[in-house]
């Protein structure tokens, strides 16, 4: 009986999906960002401005966030339906509070964390950080991974002086030589280049994925409520987002223009550069092997192992498979 009603619901949902294109009112979806608008999020703005959501019968409202954990809290508390954020933050949120949120599509198949330094500095590789001063944002998700990454490279984390500061002070401190390196996501590189240029310096990026850091990063998520109550709407959101990412990867400048059209404060040129720097995180050997958006079980497990180790959780504290819902991928 239950099965039959489920089939019925699916048929009904499919019918509704067809209907939504023409006659039905658009489905309203609140889309939670993990930070203020920026170039790395160009694809999401393209999805709205290019009408990819509209074509799926969706009316999407964007809501800016203040960090991955903030975005996940908004999803868990029901003030947003879908969102983006680091999957490591989701893993922590579920391990700590059983947050009712699932990852539904991977965006970055590589971790975006990196060490930023200036060209010509004494830091040429990760081993050179011994005895140096490195600054990081106080609430950065990279902070937990940092000591684990160093240990796996045979470096004592205590041999590096780590300063925790407000994120807005990182680039100026690096430019003024107050610190030897900073910890950032590689997607913010273009902004740092602009600041460093004012001090006559050039940016050098050492991605942690070159030093053994493996796993999924930025991901699309949905609340359990959305997954249970409106699965077919969610499927269309994912479909539109896939289209939007394809579009943005093929036309970064046009996607940045879409962002600029909706957020006038944006510097379109810098936004395009930021999106370009995120493309290798989306399209790489991992996505070539498994396909874009996929959560491949082994890499998902590796991602969890990194998080577990950095948060001092027992590895069996949770099964990473319970954090993802793959049904919404095309």
């Amino acid at each position, binding site marked *: 009986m239950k099965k039959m009603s489920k089939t019925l619901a699916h048929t009904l949902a499919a019918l509704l999906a067809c209907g939504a294109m023409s006659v039905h009112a658009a489905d309203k979806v609140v889309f939670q960002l993990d*930070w203020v608008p920026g170039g790395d999020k160009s694809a999401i703005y393209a999805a709205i401005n290019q009408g990819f959501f509209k074509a799926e019968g969706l009316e999407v409202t*964007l809501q*800016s966030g203040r960090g991955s954990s903030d975005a996940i809290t908004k999803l868990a508390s029901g*003030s947003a339906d879908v969102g983006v954020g680091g999957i490591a933050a989701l893993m922590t949120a579920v391990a700590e509070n059983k947050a009712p949120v699932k990852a539904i599509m991977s965006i970055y198949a590589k971790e975006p964390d990196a060490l930023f330094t200036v060209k010509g500095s004494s830091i040429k590789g990760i081993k050179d950080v011994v005895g140096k001063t490195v600054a990081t944002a106080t609430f950065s998700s990279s902070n937990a991974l940092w000591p684990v990454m160093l240990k796996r490279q045979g470096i004592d984390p205590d041999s590096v002086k780590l300063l925790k500061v407000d994120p807005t002070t990182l680039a100026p401190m690096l*430019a003024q030589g107050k610190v030897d390196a900073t910890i950032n996501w590689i997607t913010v590189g273009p902004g740092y280049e602009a*600041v460093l240029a004012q001090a006559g310096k050039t940016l050098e990026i050492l991605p942690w994925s070159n030093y053994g850091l493996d796993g999924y990063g930025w991901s699309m998520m949905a609340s359990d409520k959305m997954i249970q109550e409106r699965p077919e709407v969610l499927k269309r959101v994912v479909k539109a987002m896939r289209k939007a990412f394809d579009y943005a990867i093929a036309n970064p400048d046009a996607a940045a223009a879409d962002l600029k059209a909706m957020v006038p404060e944006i510097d379109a040129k810098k936004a395009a550069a930021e999106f370009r720097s995120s493309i290798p995180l989306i399209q790489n050997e991992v996505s070539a092997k498994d396909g874009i958006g996929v959560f491949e079980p082994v890499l998902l497990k590796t991602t969890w192992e990194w998080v577990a180790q950095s948060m001092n959780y027992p590895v069996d504290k949770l099964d990473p498979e319970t954090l993802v819902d793959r049904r919404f991928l095309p």
Partner: protein
Amino acid sequence: MGTLKHYADRFAPLLAFVGVLLAWEAACRLFAIPAFVLPAPSAVIASTTEIGAGRWVQHLLATVQIALIGYLVAILLALPLAVMITHSRLLSRTLLPWLIIIQSTPIVAIAPIIVVTLGAGMLPRVVITTLIAFFPLVIATATGLASVPDELLELSRSLRASRSREYWQIRMPYAVPHIFSALKVAITLAVIGAVVAEFVAAEVGLGYLILFATSTFKVPMAFAALTLLVACSLLLYGVIVLAQRLLCPWSLGKEAGQ
């Protein structure tokens, strides 16, 4: 000589302001201070053209709207609370600890919780603004209402004046100067409250713009937004001063002309 002094008196604040701006600009140029440390006034002015005037107005109105609504709610809450506190010792002993708890809680720290509880709309922003602005209003009004000389209260009671007449005709006039001082403090707090709220959750507004600009290293734009915010606070403060002068000129007392 007299006229010179008169002019000096009149233009000294303006001259000081221009002097500081010039010194600031000169320091930035002379020591080649990079914009990410301290942008020169000229760079701040130039940054205002990065977005259109319409967008600036949109940001400004969003913040002013939240500040004013929060301010009005704070007034509507504070006045009855102050009357209750003056009216009954029991209520005063029950309510005051709560007011002090609310006031001594860093609203900045609990703002994200308020947003999560109340959703991402306008409501949490108004609540945050109200929480930050209402305390001085309650305390000042209560102090004012209690500052009436006992003889006057005894006189009104001996003439069998009703409680509402006691409040409106005897206590209120004594409280008005206190209330207006608190209104002036609270309007600047309301602007700060609106900005705090926008830091936590907003898509538009000067607080949002400052957060956006600093997180994308557009420091000159952040300074421009800050300047607009300060100007807005000064203007709102001026409006309260003007309102006091027009509505209750007698309450100005010795501070008249300020």
